[in-house]
């Protein structure tokens, strides 16, 4: 895997999918670079799964162009270099883990000892070592997810598309999978992660696209994605009406923490205003115990973005 970072792994231009009269995705465009971990984030029914299904050739787009690793979705040579794990995967339960992987390995064109060796490797990677003779029908939901990931990375793909990877996993399993994905990414694998689990995206992704009601709202690095004013957490005592009034006059907004009345969140136009905040506290006769930048979690930012899009666009006829 010696590809250049900036070469596109996925290029999507003007993608639109209509199921009868329902618009699932509309005018979706984005580019994911090779070696990148790209998160596709959105609430249920946003159109995420439809996009992933189009990328994997399961669903045909109504309109738009898609290129995966520089090739159209139908290209078989390209498909040899990708892996895919669907959401809540269902496999043939009568198969044993090893036979399941061998079947998928054969479909990838893998043979003989190379395939045997790789099957053992991936079983170990996903934490299923020693389970090769166990039937899939006896696997738990989490184990199904793991064996699903094993088949997705069996062919050492350049690009792996994962749909809600950790949905069936316990916290330990989730951590293991995140660690594994970080390892795969460090080895150069491009990862497209479709999720509504913000923690996955925050922990792993270089860039994130937020999709809602079939439209991409924003694309960018998780922390720089949201165009938010800087904010400070100010711990002070006492919190007087005068203090709140004076802070309000220099800040965009001032909020008092619901659980801790001595903790204020002050949103300002620029970070340099930290000194002004300290000055106001001092002038009002309060004691300043702490003044630190306040980073909102991705979850808070995500929910604000989704809420904002809902208020600005009341379209309701879209699905996932």
């Amino acid at each position, binding site marked *: 895997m010696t590809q250049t970072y900036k070469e596109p792994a996925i290029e999507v231009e003007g993608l639109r999918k209509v199921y009868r009269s329902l618009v699932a995705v509309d005018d979706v465009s984005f580019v994911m670079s090779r070696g990148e971990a790209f998160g596709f984030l959105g609430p249920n029914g946003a159109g995420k799964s439809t996009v992933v299904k189009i990328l*994997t050739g*399961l669903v045909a787009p109504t309109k738009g162009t898609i290129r995966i690793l520089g090739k159209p979705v139908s290209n078989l040579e390209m*498909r*040899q270099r990708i892996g895919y794990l669907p959401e809540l*995967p269902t496999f043939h339960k*009568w198969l044993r883990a090893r036979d399941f992987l061998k079947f998928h390995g054969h*479909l*990838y*064109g893998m043979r003989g000892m190379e395939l045997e060796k790789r099957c053992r490797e991936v079983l170990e990677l996903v934490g299923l070592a020693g389970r090769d003779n166990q039937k899939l029908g006896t696997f738990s939901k989490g184990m199904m997810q793991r064996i699903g990931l094993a088949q997705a990375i069996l062919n050492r793909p350049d690009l792996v598309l994962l749909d809600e990877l950790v949905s069936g996993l316990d916290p330990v399993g989730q951590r293991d999978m995140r660690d594994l994905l970080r390892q795969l990414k460090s080895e150069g694998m491009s990862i497209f992660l479709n999720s509504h689990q913000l923690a996955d995206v925050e922990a792993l992704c270089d860039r994130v696209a937020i999709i809602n009601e079939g439209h991409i709202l924003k694309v960018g690095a998780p922390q720089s994605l949201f165009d938010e004013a800087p904010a400070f957490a100010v711990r002070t005592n006492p919190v007087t009406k005068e203090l709140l009034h004076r802070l309000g006059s220099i800040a965009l907004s001032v909020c008092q923490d619901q659980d801790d009345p001595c903790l204020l969140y002050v949103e300002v136009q620029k970070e340099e205003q930290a000194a002004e905040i300290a000055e106001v506290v001092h002038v009002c006769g309060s004691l300043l115990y702490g003044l630190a930048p306040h980073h909102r979690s991705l979850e808070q930012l995500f929910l604000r973005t989704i809420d904002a899009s809902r208020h600005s666009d009341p379209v309701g006829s879209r699905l996932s």
Partner: protein
Amino acid sequence: MGLLYIMRFTLLEAIRRRLFLAVVILSILILTAFSILLSFVINASQVNNNNSNDAQLQLLGAGVIITLLAIWMVYLLSSTLTIVFTANMISGEVDAGTFAVIVPKPLTRVEIVLGKWLGFALIVCTYTALMFLSFLVVIYRQTGYWPVDALYALGMLELGMLALLGITTLGSSLVPTIVNGAIALMLFIGAPIASIVQYVVKFLNPSSLHTVQNITTVINLIIPTDALWHGATFYLLPPAVEFALMGLPQDFNSPFTSGQPVAPALLVWAVLYCIALPGLAALRFQHRDL
């Protein structure tokens, strides 16, 4: 290559199903019961008929009738197996979601459909051939009768099964499993009605026979299984000159048997039918959202 892996996978999957085991056990039981009953009946009839030439010919005549009945049972068993086994061929995988990890692999959807079709075709044809030959061997050992054109008869039966498989393959790519099974079953059961009506009209109202024959032809074009069964019965019979010797009726044209082979045009149509329907299924699946 992907086609062969899908075919092999389909074979393995079918063999591991409980349904397959049930079919194998029941088929062995049916064959055993048939063998015992036939032996009992033949031995009982030979008590009164020593080893004279007439008795031998009568035994052969009985063998012909038994062959027709036994192979009719094979035809029904194989047809039922074909419908039950294959009605969920594509729709079942789509509903279960198992195609979601197979379709994105480096193989075409046509390979997936044709691989599955090929796997089921092998199962159905092997089962039909084994049952057909097993029954004929049992009958031969008891009565001494072996149809001269047994392999032609088997060919007709196999073609009928492939036609039925074509229907379920296409149906499975278009409609849910239960609907597909119901359609295939109704077509299969409905097809002989044309032959029955034609037979009745021949006696009651010969002037309408031409119209009825045209309707029968159309039905045979829609589902040629019954016509192919009639074709098979022709090849199960001995040469016409031996009918009288064996004490058989001269006319074997009935709603269930035929004294003539299948018309070459219909045979060509049946072959095309067996090829075209899976092809249409592959074409439909190619454009189906999963």
